[in-house]
């Protein structure tokens, strides 16, 4: 018992201050690959190196402008390494979450339309207490692990009223990871149907947004939105815990809309 208390004292208080007022902004690792930044003005005419290098066809070029589908992006850097003009870099910006699938497609010269808060009744219902059921539907345990980490003392997700529950019957929403394999399609539908109304769905990671590395495999369904309606899209492979936390807090209106 004494040893437990001593160890407790040594381990200290370790929950991050963010997003409390006055708390330091989170610092991402120097090599963190956040939102990709494209400088289309550097692109030579007819160059398609980045398009060809991308493993998930996330990049398209139209009218000399690069467009990126954040839902498909694995944040793998294959495009940047292929670019002869160094026109592609990764910012350290971890804020990537959007509410509409169409907002995942970003132009090189355009800001991301970050997720808006739930409105009206839903925000009133879930804003101070959101119980989620997590369903892994073909996820590799990367997204699952970094969702799980939010429940540890370092992040303490429950201080925002968000927690993960053991049954869809106890839940306000689903948090889905994985491309939705054929073999999980039915279980996912059953879990969704078991949620009481009103309910929300959060898709986390490239697989759940688009199929990720498994896009167009006959064994998968190219993401959660092809099976159930999705209210929040959190890109990444896997998303950093900060990205997931930022997305959840925006949805609940706990980060001011003006703070993009």
């Amino acid at each position, binding site marked *: 018992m004494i040893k437990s208390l001593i160890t407790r004292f040594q381990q200290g208080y370790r929950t991050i201050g963010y997003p409390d007022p006055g708390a330091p902004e989170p610092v991402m*690792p120097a090599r963190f690959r956040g939102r990709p930044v494209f400088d289309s003005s550097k692109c030579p005419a007819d160059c398609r190196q980045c398009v060809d290098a991308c493993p998930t066809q996330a990049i398209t070029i139209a009218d000399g402008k690069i467009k990126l589908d954040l839902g498909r992006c694995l944040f793998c850097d294959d495009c940047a390494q292929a670019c002869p003009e160094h026109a592609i870099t990764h910012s350290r910006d971890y804020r990537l979450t959007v509410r509409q699938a169409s907002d995942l497609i970003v132009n090189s010269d355009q800001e991301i339309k970050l997720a808006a808060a739930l409105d009206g009744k839903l925000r009133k219902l879930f804003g101070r207490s959101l119980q989620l059921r997590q369903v892994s539907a073909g996820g590799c345990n990367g997204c699952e692990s970094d969702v799980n980490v939010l429940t540890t003392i370092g992040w303490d997700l429950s201080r925002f009223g968000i927690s993960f529950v053991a049954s869809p019957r106890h839940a306000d929403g689903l948090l889905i990871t994985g491309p939705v394999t054929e073999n999980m399609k039915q279980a996912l539908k059953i879990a969704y149907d078991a949620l009481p109304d009103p309910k929300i769905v959060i898709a986390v990671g490239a697989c759940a947004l688009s199929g990720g590395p498994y896009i167009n495999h006959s064994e998968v369904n190219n993401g959660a939105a092809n099976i159930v309606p999705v209210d929040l899209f959190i890109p990444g492979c896997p998303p950093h815990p900060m990205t997931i936390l930022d997305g959840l807090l925006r949805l609940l209106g706990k980060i001011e809309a003006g703070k993009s």
Partner: protein
Amino acid sequence: MTQTTPSSTMSFVEIINGQPLERSALPDLPLPQFQNTILDAVQDGHRVAALFGSPHQDPAKLNVYAVLADDRRGRFQAAYTSVSVDGFPSLTPRCPQAHLFEREIAEQYGVKPLGHPWLKPVRFHRSYRAGTDAWNRTATDVVQAGVMEFYQITGGQVHEVAVGPIHAGIIEPGHFRFQCDGETILHLEISLGYQHRGVERAMQGGPNKRSLHYAETLAGDTTIGHGCAYAHMLESLSHCRISPRAAAIRGIALELERLANHVGDLGALSGDVGFLPTASFCGRIRGDFLNMTAALCGSRFGRGLVRIGGVGFDVETTLAADLLKRLDVAEQESRGAITLLWETSSVMARFEGIGTVPKDTALELGMVGPAARACGLDMDSRRDHPSGIYRFSHVPVSTWRGGDVFARAYVRWLEIQRSIQFVRDQLKSLPSGELRSAVAALQPNALAVTMQEAWRGEVCHIALTDAQGRFERYKIVDPSFHNWMGVAMAVRGKQISDFPLCNKSFSLSYCGHDL
């Protein structure tokens, strides 16, 4: 380098980890000799590292390849045979290690191992040979995970408990079917396949721009393990030598991956027995190790670190110094958190004597990794089949006895200490060299085997290339494939309430198994 051995595997050809072999040098054995050699070799202490099918040019036949691991001599033995698509005598009744491999052959190619005592689907997908099915399902029958005949025990007091595919926590899906007499588990059948994404099928015809990403997401918590095995495969088949520096950085990343997962698992085990201090501390410290990997390559799971021909990122002097400092803190905090477990009687009472797998059973099932070492099996492919940095820097093998939850936990703690020491040594004396070496085209008509000791145990990749140097077949064996049956054995005759603890003590991968 190839040579035959005077032992029981005389008819097989001998290769080492990452050494490509001309396919013409691979013995094509008659089926009885092929099977008898495997039986003799396993009797002799070799293990079945892989046994898999591959199409034969005659549509009435199927090729079956075997790769055996001779851990004592650091060699693999390989050969192949051809069987009729109408079926072949099963090896499983005489060699339990073959059991899941033969089920996989049946599922992938619709060819039945006749006399297999437990012939059920593994991942619930249609056969690669269109129109064939080992369970005589037609094109209109549904092939759905979990739809199969489960073993049932009947009797007045016997009841059945079904768990999954969706589980209560934030974990991957799988189905567990218990036959219980009161609280006692008479039998557990584990039926997986829910995570099947078709990786092996998609690897055929590769490598292509997705292949490395498949490897990195085969089991996302083993990104470095599978990434290294895959990169090593391409380097072997293209006769590319990575620099000592690249090899050392891969080793650092592989050990950080082990550290993060082992620390996380000890925390989760602590949580499963209701001892929250260590559960809380380890949950956070795991993140400190993940963040060290993120400092290396930007990703907490090591995405982008392993590149074909080397690594994507260097460890400069300042980064090495920073990592050493963080490692010291993480070591001290891990020690404080984890030793609490061994000193707390309520924890030890729940760890000791629970979920025991006898050493003989572990051997017979062909278990690998920390779960096998916890049964006293002295095996670790970092020592037995070393590649990369492990040929020069050795990590002592950590074993324990007993095969219970405690042993599986304690082996992890031993490995944590040794991995920290290894990472520290590497960071202090990083060799020089290019980060990436050039990779040429792959050797055509070749076979190669690569193996890495990832945190759950050995990751084994096998490639067969065609005349153009493309993958004709790419076989992946995750350590979980060898160990899931161990979980079923660990809980037999035990209380059903101990199942979560037993399961966590193995901490196996669902997607690594399901591919």
